[in-house]
């Protein structure tokens, strides 16, 4: 595992980012963003690598990784479904939308399907309040939803 994760071109890219920020003030967050973007999550081997490169304790990296909700320690699914639970969406029925998705793909918020096709998240406000209630699948936004819309939308992302 260690060897396969660390010996590839992703690592080179991460190394470039580390070199870019290493001598700047507050380098950790930009580097971790890059790592999360490259690997889709933060494997412990990557955290160890960053710790060594910046000469800071691994516990610091782990502390930061677990504090922020955008960093994750688990691999994510191919399609990420984010159900907006901001206030505007909530008062317009996002709970019913979430419930419907939970039934449709049989995952709870925060879970990833066994085949790694879906990850379901109940997200913070997506800032598209004018279209409430809103969900986002990868980069696609679906707005003004009612529960009966869900089945059709999800089916577009099922593995064929």
């Amino acid at each position, binding site marked *: 595992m260690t060897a396969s994760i660390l010996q590839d071109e992703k690592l080179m890219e991460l190394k470039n980012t580390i070199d870019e920020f290493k001598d700047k003030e507050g380098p950790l967050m930009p580097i971790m963003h890059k790592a999360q973007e490259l690997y889709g999550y933060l494997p412990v081997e990557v955290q160890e690598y960053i710790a060594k490169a910046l000469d800071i304790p691994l516990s610091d990296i782990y502390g930061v990784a677990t504090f922020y909700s955008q960093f994750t320690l688990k691999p994510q699914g191919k399609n990420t479904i984010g159900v907006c639970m901001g*206030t505007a969406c909530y008062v317009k029925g996002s709970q019913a939308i979430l*419930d419907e998705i939970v039934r449709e793909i049989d995952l709870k918020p925060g879970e990833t399907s066994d085949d790694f096709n879906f990850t379901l998240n109940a997200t913070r406000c997506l800032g598209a309040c*004018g279209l409430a209630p809103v969900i986002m699948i990868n980069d696609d936004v679906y707005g003004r939803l009612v529960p009966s819309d869900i089945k059709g939308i999800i089916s577009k992302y099922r593995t064929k």
Partner: protein
Amino acid sequence: MEFYRSHVLICGGTGCHSSGSADVMEVFKTELESNKLENEIKLVQTGCFGLCAIGPVVIVYPEGAFYSKVTTDDVPRIVSEHLLKGRIVTDLLYHDSVHDDEAIKSLDEVEFYKKQKRLALRNCGVIDPEKIEEYIAFDGYKALGKALLESTPEEIINIIKASGLRGRGGAGFPTGLKWEFTAKAEGDKKYILCNADEGDPGAFMDRSVLEGDPHAVLEAMTIAGYAVGADQGYIYVRAEYPIAVKRLNIAIDQAREAGLLGKNIFGTNFNFDIEIRLGAGAFVCGEETALIASIEGKRGEPRPRPPFPANKGVFGKPTLLNNVETYANIPQIIHNGADWFQSVGTEKSKGTKVFALGGKVMNTGLVEVPMGTTLREIIYEIGGGIPDNKEFKAAQTGGPSGGCIPAEHLDTPIDYDSLARIGSMMGSGGLIVMDEDNCMVDIARFFLDFTVDESCGKCPPCRIGTKRMLEILNRITKGQGEEGDIEKLEELGKNIKASALCGLGQTAPNPVLSTIRYFRDEYEAHIRDKKCPAGVCQALLQVLIQAELCKGCGLCVKVCPTDAISGERRSPHVIDQSKCIKCGACMEKCPFKAIVKG
């Protein structure tokens, strides 16, 4: 410079973008090319127009034709009829943008814009945010020139102080004082920060400013750098805002290239540069000391103040931190003077405030009004009222830190102080309208759920106290409320407000306390009668088919996700309560309104 006979402005704000404005833009491009119009008509992707509810929005000048809900199918008609033949496609125009005789209204005559005053949003929906030339053409960077070439740092601070501008992030601290404290702080190095970690659910004005007018923020931060003696700025922006980040990066590059950021700006010996730092999804990082910790690469935990950031901020150096909307006002104040800004607003709150109007209101979107405008004007005149003839119940301002304002206060002129008096707060400007179908206990529970999740865990009142409050609220909404629960919530709330470390904890009880203050009867109905009057709390209600209204059409059977509905065709159906999950899908589908929650 090229001249065009028409300009087509396409809204590229978040709302319209989500409704498909990028595709509309693409089709415009190909249609213009195939009609050989690309050298006569200019396409401009702008920031937010404000009226997200009817997006994607397209405005064609010089006529000012306001097209709403434009689809890719509509574009060929607009191009061939309007742009080629000069015949406006009236059936695609926004209904309130034309007079009865089909003549086009100017934008200030449209009900949605009539009472608005766009200062912070001045350029949003007007210029192309990815072109520095357009910003400069609208007086951009003039204020910076005036500051650097004609004013001393003290004079700049005095103008900001005299303008009466207060922090738009929510607390309303006088901006000029903050600048003065940072300017007077001792230090070899100082920093300018911009708080663009807009975390309040339901607020997206900072996002719209960054996406629609990024140079205004850069210009303001540079002016601030000159005023307090800093040469480095950071913009801390939510990672959830990719378009804002992209446009900021473009703007920074253009400003550097034009010599408006970097060394010897305007030929003076003043140097200033700006970098972007991304947040990573932590609401508490909107608090200034937590934001500073996050920029330093640490867990975003707040620390006690003093020392204030003005004396000891990022990397231990004196730091000035303002919010995006606050900065967006700065260049115009320098440009037009303190008296000009003073003339708008109320006695203690000057200028305007941008609100993100959402929830149960017709015209959802972004509105900017002078301080002192009433809630009624915003909701009923600008917002167009509540849809489906429902009754207004409350307006929520200030997000998880604010409160719910009932109908009796609809005529309160809104400013920092009046909102605080009625148990809410300005906050960053989310304004969510709720109607009779929203349960106020459930809303209080919703906000507490948010705060508990976002509490950083450093101080016990917030970490443990809000959790206890949430447990009580969960019990109440599940029908397990007990006598004394309301009093317990009030006591806990008061203690948390008094003892929590940072603004997040100190304001977390507000949604609960304000709903108890104005909607105590709803809490009592949940606790004593085990009823949810609004029909929201699922444990307290049943979905029932009224036999006398049911025609047995069977539509509800098809839509029910748990097969809980059964019945013969053309005769009344029934719901099996053991299977029903109360999702309400059947109610939504029933053409005869025969299904009710009770």
